[in-house]
């Protein structure tokens, strides 16, 4: 039972990160119907920015953890958003109205580019971050097995909940959110009604990138090591999460992320850790075959 609880907590932590990345996929897919293949690299850039920022703060002597965390959050979110915006502006916007697969191929090119860009600039070796937040709660002491909830895990879960609340407000109750929902329903009609479509799409990429940056910071804090290749696998898994929850639906993306994180944690905990990626990919294939619109998505109607 305690072992189960431990896997549940690990799974939720992992799932929170997947969910935050998945929201970026889901929003972009909802509005312009493309898979932003480079989104995983945006998350990777967020992780690198956070490690650079933590190191810089260490050099500058700012070591009070809450302040450092806040600064890193703001800087990494802002800078990663700039990357998200630039990617959309350079690689996707000129392709609107091109043939069906063009944006996807362009996104794959962008993903390869960003991966090698970071590798060339920051080096190919693994980047470690000395633990910033140490310690945690331990339950079930006295028995054989104990459950550990580290402070990092608590921060990740709290931060995710806070972001989700803020985000739901943004989508549901602001002019920007209304414009996004309008674009999701019908891009052309929204444009005719006076919504600035280009700006809305840009801001969607910015928001997705900011959330991916938070996931990047969490990964840096949680694992303590990153490299330039983490974006690929995280990206594919987050996409799986988005599909599982129903692509285009934001609560669905979060739900899918949590489910996928738990599946992965339980799979590694009870079966084999080597095949945990196979489990994630198999879920993707099974969901696409048997439940193409996901758990919370609306079925897609193909029109001539």
């Amino acid at each position, binding site marked *: 039972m305690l072992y189960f609880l431990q896997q549940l907590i690990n799974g939720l932590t992992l799932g929170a990160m997947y969910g935050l990345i998945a929201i970026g996929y889901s929003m972009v897919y909802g509005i312009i119907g493309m898979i932003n293949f480079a989104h995983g690299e945006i998350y990777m850039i967020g992780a690198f920015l956070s490690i650079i920022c933590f190191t810089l703060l260490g050099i500058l002597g700012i070591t009070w953890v809450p302040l450092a965390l806040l600064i890193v959050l703001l800087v990494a979110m802002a800078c990663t958003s700039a990357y998200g915006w630039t990617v959309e502006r350079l690689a996707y916007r000129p392709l609107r109205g091109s043939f069906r697969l063009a944006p996807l191929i362009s996104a794959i090119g962008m993903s390869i580019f960003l991966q090698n860009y970071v590798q060339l600039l920051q080096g190919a070796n693994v980047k470690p971050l000395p633990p910033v937040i140490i310690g945690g709660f331990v339950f079930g002491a006295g028995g054989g097995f104990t459950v550990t909830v580290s402070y990092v895990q608590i921060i990740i879960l709290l931060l995710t909940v806070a972001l989700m609340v803020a985000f739901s407000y943004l989508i549901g109750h602001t002019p920007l959110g209304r414009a996004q929902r309008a674009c999701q329903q019908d891009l052309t009609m929204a444009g005719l009604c006076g919504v600035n479509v280009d700006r809305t799409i840009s801001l969607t990429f910015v928001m997705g990138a900011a959330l991916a940056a938070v996931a990047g910071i969490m990964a840096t804090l949680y694992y303590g090591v990153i490299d330039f290749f983490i974006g690929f696998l995280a990206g594919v898994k987050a996409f799986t999460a988005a599909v599982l929850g129903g692509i285009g639906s934001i609560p669905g993306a979060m739900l899918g992320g949590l489910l996928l994180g738990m599946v992965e944690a339980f799979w590694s905990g009870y079966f084999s850790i080597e095949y945990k990626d196979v489990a994630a990919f198999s879920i993707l294939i099974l969901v*696409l075959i048997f439940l193409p619109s996901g758990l919370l998505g609306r079925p897609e109607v193909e029109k001539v």
Partner: protein
Amino acid sequence: MAGRVLGATTAATTGIDWPAALKECLAAALVALVLFLPLVGMRTVRVEGGAGLDFRFGWVAIGVAAVFAGRFLLVALRTVRPGTVGAVTAPIARIPALFGPYTQFLVIGGVVFAFVLPFLPFANRYVVDIATTVLIYVMLGWGLNIVVGLAGLLDLGYVAFYAVGAYSYALLAINFDLSFWECLPLAGAFAAFMGVVLGFPVLRLRGDYLAIVTLGFGEIIRIILLNWYDVTNGPNGLSAIPRPSFFGLEFTRSPDEGEAAFHEFFGLSYSSLHRVQFLYFLILILALVTNAFVLRIRKLPISRAWEALREDEIACRALGINPTNTKLTAFALGAMFGGFAGSFFATRQGFISPESFTFIESALVLAIVVLGGMGSQVGVVLAALVLVLLPEFGREFAQFRMLLFGAAMVMIMIWRPRGLLAHREPTIHLHPVAAAPP
């Protein structure tokens, strides 16, 4: 056309709007500063007792200045001569038309050159080796071209079939002592079977979903190869894979008792170059067979159905074409050629491990198809030549290779989305001459 000329004259007379241009350039430079300052300007390094930073603000300054200048150039070009920005690639667009009448001769010349290449004076072992690598990618490109170019299905896991071919050859040859020529069809059949197994459930999906699923499939195959120790020997890979023989004649200095080696049979002195040359001709013939197959099948109804499906699936369904079966044949055939190329790869290397079958390899083959022009056979050859040969020119270049691939894929999609050499004419005209557009 008239509108563009009119626009040009009016814009040229007004000249550059300096404040607006400056504002635009400054905005671009500011974004560049935000992008470059942390990632370019600071590099994390390991120092005594933890992590440190290596500052490179000079690079940031150069980068920002370059963005500023580039943006200004763009604005100036746009104002002075509207239309030039988009027309930069126009000369490239004319290349196919330029060579159009001579394509036949060029292709025949190319094939003849490929056949005599190993006997030319400069063709040492290194040159033949590189040429063999180029041909492997040409063959993979042609195989993937069936799936991506003709049928319009984006396959990001093509390397999985390459891996299946390589491992089936290696396992069959090692465990059952079958020869290369016995294994080749089996490896192709296994790969095609995997294509059908994967394709059957997922080919109903929309194009971009299919891309991600194939990518996932490629990774699944790689992870299985990595962890199934009993069969694949895990990350250590399979070694001592039998090399091919020339109709039973081995390429060894001292053959087994009672058997003749290649050089003895033909009365030549032994040279290790013989095997390299033989492998070169082997892949050349395999590639040409692939090409002949594709060129022939393009004239059959099945290929017409692929191309029609690529253009409009709903219309095809209305015309009674079964989309799943049609796509499945394309998928299986593409996989089969991937399997052939894979078994050649295994016999050439003599050693295979999951390292050789990563996503990057899939991306490379896809880049060859995309850059060459989806559906163009000659384009694939040129793209494979460029992508394989360029890194050979220097270590510095090899470092930037993937970076440039990525950038090139984006730029090709923006400027010439059908690929550099693609020219898509309808393969059949209703009224052959009269209906051709002027």
